[in-house]
């Protein structure tokens, strides 16, 4: 497993590093990763289907007891198959789809990193590892959507997707931490076997995890980012936004559902409602699109809704149908996305109002697309049909209302599937500026890669027994039982078949009478125009967030230097002063040692007092210097030549700097009495505290003074007799290193702040 991840990492980094040289090989090198996953999955298929579990534990930081656990059961293996099959086909397709170049090679590398992240996500057994890979898919998805970075639309869409899924991911991290903490283990397998007992925190944890899954899998009301993500080049849309990444949320709810159902009682209801609403909203929106790719995107939203509820609800029979449908969906949707890319590639448009006559000019593409579309519409003899039958059968057990709701979404699916097929390949359109009549059917990967996936759908539709053992085992390992559902090419005359045929007939009617659909969508569209759309609410909430940030930062960061200093000083007083809330310890007032000390003390005190009453800034600087030089003198008298020297020099430097700055400041201080009063108050408080605090701390010696050690060791250890210096450069050299770093950074910061101001003044000046 580690080897698989390494293959992804190495090929991705190699392709990115050699992006100028790999040319058309970029995607073929990248395909090694998914291909290796596929090979590995096939090699493990026998054992894992029989119930074995592949485990690998890698010691990461043994001293911190950090280990990386991998655990692949049949449920995870099914997802690995999806990544491997769809990934291999899409990478080979992409090698033909793009014109080679450095930027495309970077794209290929990013997509390979994504594939690796997806492999890690489904195979790790650690909650935090899961989060790590989860976020890696978010980041790579952001980069892939924003591939056309010169287009504002692509950048906005990439940001939208990253913000929604990123925020969901953060929520999920919070939830995972809460759950892991409550369960006493961060291993996914432990949480599933020993679900945390219900409590307020656990409820919150499940809620947050659900939020993460809902955003990732584009469920209502967060589905807005997925159609926007279609700004990505088609291979990324096919791989990330239909086959794999959007299934991460479904993977998670499916994995944790057995625990969630035990832990909290609202889980099933929440998953059902979210799934149903998403399913209907997505199907409805898909009917109204003119862009083939957007139509597929909304279709994906709809399908994801169905998968979300089937897999996330925690009922074995539904889980079985859901997993079958998931595999079917990966096959037909990835292949349809690729065909849309092929059509776009050959005819130059994806607008079904312009496309015309493709059936005749691209017959092979047409018939292969038919194979995929029929699977999407669940026409008998396709894998989609077999899977949907299994789902309907499970839903029937729960109640007619459930299956009726699913059938409603299915009708919409059939309707947009028909619209897709007629729109792309029909020739009855007489619209303006037709395109595609002279397009040629490609004879390379643009045809074979999606054709392979579509053909797999047909084969599995006729022989569903080929995949049934895997689905069965996956159902069992995800908390269900073996043999929960049936997966057959023809179910016989059962009630579920009636629902399938009903969906097909009603959907076909909608395709037959497009006028009725248009009228209905127009009417509902008028009504829906009043409702907030997902995209609009996202934009509004981002705008609201920005304006909130603006307002709060202008309140906190108001730019008033006196206010900042006052806050810093008051915090510096009140925080340590809270140590004295049990009473102030007694302390002795210092005694005056000599006349010289007295004179210097008077100089300092006199300067300080005069400083308060002075009105002119220049005089204030001089008086401040008096305080400083007085201190330097006091140090010298008390036997600290080093301190004295440093104080003297710092004071000189400060005054000189003041001289430079004074030119920019008003000559006098503020005349407002309230402002002066406030400042006096703060100054008096800080002064009194520092004075008293200094005396108290000097009087309360708890342990032997550290200075003795320094005095003893200075010559033998540090090789110097100036203790102050040996402390600075030897004993406490680490502190000094930090201080000079601060000094350097502060200088650069000050220069960066001051230079633009003086420069702009110079430009405005005469």
């Amino acid at each position, binding site marked *: 497993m580690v080897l698989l991840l390494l293959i992804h990492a190495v090929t991705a980094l190699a392709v990115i590093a050699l992006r100028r040289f790999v040319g058309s090989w970029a995607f073929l090198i990248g395909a090694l990763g998914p291909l290796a996953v596929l090979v590995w999955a096939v090699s493990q298929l026998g054992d894992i289907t029989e119930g074995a579990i592949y485990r690998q534990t890698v010691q990461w930081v043994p001293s911190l007891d950090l280990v990386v656990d991998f655990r692949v059961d049949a449920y995870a293996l099914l997802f690995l198959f999806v990544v491997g099959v769809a990934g291999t086909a899409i990478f080979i397709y992409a090698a033909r789809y793009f014109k080679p170049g450095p930027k495309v090679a970077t794209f290929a590398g990013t997509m390979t990193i994504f594939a690796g992240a997806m492999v890690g996500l489904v195979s790790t057994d650690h909650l935090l590892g899961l989060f790590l890979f989860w976020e890696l898919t978010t980041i790579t998805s952001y980069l892939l959507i924003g591939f056309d970075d010169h287009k504002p639309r692509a950048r906005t869409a990439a940001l939208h997707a990253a913000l929604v899924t990123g925020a969901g991911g953060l929520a999920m991290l919070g939830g995972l931490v809460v759950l892991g903490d409550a369960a006493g283990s961060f291993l996914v397998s432990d949480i599933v076997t020993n679900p945390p007992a219900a409590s307020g925190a656990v409820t919150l944890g499940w809620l947050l995890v659900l939020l993460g899954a809902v955003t990732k899998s584009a469920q209502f009301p967060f589905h807005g980012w997925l159609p926007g993500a279609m700004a990505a080049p088609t291979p990324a849309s096919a791989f990330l936004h239909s086959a794999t990444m959007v299934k991460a949320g479904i993977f998670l709810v499916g994995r944790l559902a057995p625990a969630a159902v035990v832990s909290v009682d609202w889980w099933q209801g929440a998953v059902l409602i979210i799934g149903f609403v998403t399913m209907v909203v997505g199907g409805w929106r898909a009917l109204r699109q003119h862009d083939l790719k957007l139509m597929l995107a909304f279709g994906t939203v709809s399908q994801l809704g169905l998968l979300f509820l089937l897999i996330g609800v925690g009922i074995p029979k539904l889980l079985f149908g859901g997993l079958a449908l998931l595999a079917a969906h990966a096959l037909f949707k990835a292949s349809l996305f690729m065909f849309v890319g092929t059509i776009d590639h050959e005819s130059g448009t994806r607008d079904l109002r312009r496309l015309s006559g493709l059936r005749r000019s691209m017959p092979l593409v047409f018939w292969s697309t038919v194979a995929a579309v029929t699977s999407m519409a669940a026409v008998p003899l396709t894998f989609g049909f077999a899977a949907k039958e299994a789902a309907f059968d499970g839903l029937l057990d729960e109640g007619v209302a459930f299956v009726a709701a699913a059938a409603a979404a299915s009708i919409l699916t059939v309707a947009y599937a028909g619209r897709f097929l007629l729109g792309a390949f029909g020739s009855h359109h007489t619209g303006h500026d037709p395109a595609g009549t002279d397009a040629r059917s490609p004879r390379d990967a643009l045809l074979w890669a999606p054709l392979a996936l579509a053909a797999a759908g047909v084969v599995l539709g006729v022989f569903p027994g080929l995949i049934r053992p895997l689905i069965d085992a996956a159902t069992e390992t995800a908390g269900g039982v073996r043999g929960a559902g049936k997966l057959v090419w023809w179910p016989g005359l059962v009630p579920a078949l009636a629902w399938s045929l009903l969906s097909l007939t009603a959907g076909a009617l909608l395709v037959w009478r497009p006028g009725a659909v248009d009228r209905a969508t127009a009417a509902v569209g008028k009504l829906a125009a009043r409702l907030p759309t997902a995209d609009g609410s996202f934009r509004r909430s981002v705008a609201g967030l920005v304006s909130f940030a603006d307002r709060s930062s202008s309140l906190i960061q108001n730019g008033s230097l006196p206010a900042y200093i006052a806050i810093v000083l008051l915090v510096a007083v009140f925080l340590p002063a809270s140590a004295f809330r049990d009473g102030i310890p007694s302390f002795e007032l210092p005694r005056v040692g000599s006349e010289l000390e007295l004179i210097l003390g008077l100089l300092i005190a006199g300067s300080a007092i005069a400083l308060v009453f002075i009105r002119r800034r220049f005089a204030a600087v001089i008086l401040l210097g008096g305080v400083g030089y007085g201190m330097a003198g006091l140090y010298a008298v008390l036997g600290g*030549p*080093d301190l004295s*020297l*440093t104080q003297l*020099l*710092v004071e*000189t*430097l400060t005054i*000189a*700097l003041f*001289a*430079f*700055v004074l*030119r920019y400041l008003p000559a006098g201080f503020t005349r407002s009495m309230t402002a002066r009063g406030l400042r006096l108050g703060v100054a008096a408080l800080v002064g009194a505290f520092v004075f008293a605090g200094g005396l108290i701390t000097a009087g309360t010696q708890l342990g032997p003074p550290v200075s003795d050690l320094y005095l003893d060791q200075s010559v033998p250890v*540090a*090789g*110097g*007799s*100036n203790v*102050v*210096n*040996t402390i*600075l*450069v*030897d004993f406490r*050299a*680490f502190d*000094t*290193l930090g201080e*000079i*770093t601060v*000094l*350097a950074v*502060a*200088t*650069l910061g*000050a*220069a960066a702040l*001051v*230079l633009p101001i*003086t*420069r702009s*003044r*110079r430009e405005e*000046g005469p």
Partner: protein
Amino acid sequence: MTQYPSAILARGIVAATGPLLVFSLFLLFAGHNQPGGGFAGGLVAGVTVMLAWSAGGPDTVRRIIPVRSSALLGAGLVIATVTGFWPLLAGLEFLESGYVEISIPLIGDLKLVSALAFDIGVYLVVLGMSLGLVRALGEEHTDNSEVTR
């Protein structure tokens, strides 16, 4: 519209910068055993820079210290950090210091402390700070002095 108060004073200050810089180096090297050290030495050099600036403006400063302040800051930090990591190669602790005593004919015994290199880093950062602040805050000064000339 700054006019230098007195040409004699200005010349005198410029003449004094040399000895002052030498004094700052003395403080730096003497610092391990006598009052001084990299911080104090750097401050003396920094004050010298300010004096030179007020006497002759940026050109004089550039003549005395012909490098950018950021180069001094960077060099200082690099030296100090390298002295920190250097002992690790010898299996010692981060920033651990050692010293060797050598005799040089005519001059006498000399004790070389590895911490001196660290102190040189401190010196350079403090000097770089003074230089950087003077150059930033005195920016307008530059322009005026050119106008008055």
